[in-house]
């Protein structure tokens, strides 16, 4: 099998999307940790357009953008599928994966801002959760059904990173009374062995992100 490599960064949920997919499919890979304050020349060579992680390499050829990488992995290694077979169900899964990817950015906006801008981001984040709760597929453990799928992976940021951001920023959005289905999913998702074994330490993340936010608001 051709060489598989992942350039990622430990605090990044986008990096973890790829780790989860590779682990769920049992694909051996080499992990390269990138220091985002000092990006390697290799990274800039592999991703000249966005200069971001994750970058996935298969046989030396780079694939960029986490959702694009997930689709690529699904295409090349169809075992333990992340998407349903039926075209209509696939389209629904892709819809929600895109929703999670697009709207999930609001939690990072909340992290990076303050005042009115932050309030706006908080409202967006809450609205995202509301939509998810409202349209959650009935009686399914994961969005993918009995096993984790692409939507669950895309939502990983909500499960593990949003609680940390909430603490740093001083908000409480993940209310179990308002979002019972979502919170149940978060518990199931994080208890799933492969996910549980592949999550960054929340305390370390809290310290790291807290420092990042301080740096953000220190700069003139």
């Amino acid at each position: 099998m051709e060489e598989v490599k992942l350039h990622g960064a430990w605090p990044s949920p986008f990096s973890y999307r790829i780790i989860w997919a590779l682990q769920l499919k049992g694909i051996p890979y080499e992990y390269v940790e990138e220091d985002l304050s000092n990006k390697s020349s290799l990274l800039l060579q592999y991703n000249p357009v966005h200069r971001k992680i994750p970058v996935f390499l298969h046989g030396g050829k780079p694939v960029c953008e986490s959702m694009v990488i997930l689709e690529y992995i699904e295409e090349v290694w169809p075992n333990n599928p992340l998407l349903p077979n039926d075209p209509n169900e696939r389209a629904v899964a892709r819809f929600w994966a895109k929703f999670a990817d697009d709207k999930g950015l609001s939690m990072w906006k909340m992290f990076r801002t303050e005042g009115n801008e932050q309030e706006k981001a908080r409202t967006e984040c809450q609205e995202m959760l509301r939509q998810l709760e409202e349209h959650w597929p009935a009686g399914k453990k994961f969005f993918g059904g009995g096993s984790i799928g692409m939507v669950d992976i895309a939502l990983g940021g909500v499960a593990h990173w949003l609680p940390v951001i909430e603490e740093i920023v001083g908000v409480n959005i993940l209310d179990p009374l308002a979002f019972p289905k979502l919170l149940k999913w978060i518990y199931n998702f994080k208890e799933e062995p492969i996910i549980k074994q592949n999550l960054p330490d929340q305390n370390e993340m809290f310290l790291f992100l807290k420092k990042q936010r301080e740096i953000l608001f220190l700069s003139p």
Partner: protein
Amino acid sequence: MAKTDVKVLGAWPSPFVMRPRIALNLKSVEYEFLEETFGSKSPLLLQSNPVYKKIPVLIHQDKPICESLIIVQYVDEVWASGPSLLPSDPYDQALARFWAAYIDDKWFPSVRGIALPQGEEGKAELMVQVFEGLALLEDAFDKCSQGKAFFGGDKIGYVDIALGSFLGWLKATEKMNNVKLLDETKNPNLVGWAERFCSHDAVREVMPETDKLVEFAKMLRARFKAPAS
């Protein structure tokens, strides 16, 4: 398949609505086009796309599919006997998805931003972004087309549909701002491609005329400037 089995909810000025229509045309699938009235959203739209309440929506056998590029992928998968829209090679497929995402997330927002009310400096900055994007896409065309007519090779494919659907608004923006964005000297590949794309059978009937788009944009601007009654 009965014509009414496939419906597209949309509106003529929307570049996103063009995408499923081009895809269905390429696959020779007959469909019913249900035009939304500007300024209001039909009950069918609200019911079919409760999350975003936006067009386009494809309704196939009474089941709605939303988000233009997701619809294009769905059309490609369901009508698999027709010409493929996504490349068969997984790596080429990933490149196609990458460029389509770039076009939607980075490039077109810069184009659209030019139309928004702002100072000359803001506009100039956006134009630089648009030109930089076009340079990247010029290069991407070289790599994806491999010397052939379209990003998809001999036939129109996913990236062609993603980028081509914005050509109407690109030309309208050029006209309204008296500037050339797609330039033969800077982007010879793309200029040639744009002509081929716009004159293609599957595209011609759904590509709005530039003048009509300019009129529509003026109407929009006037509407949003008008004081609330």
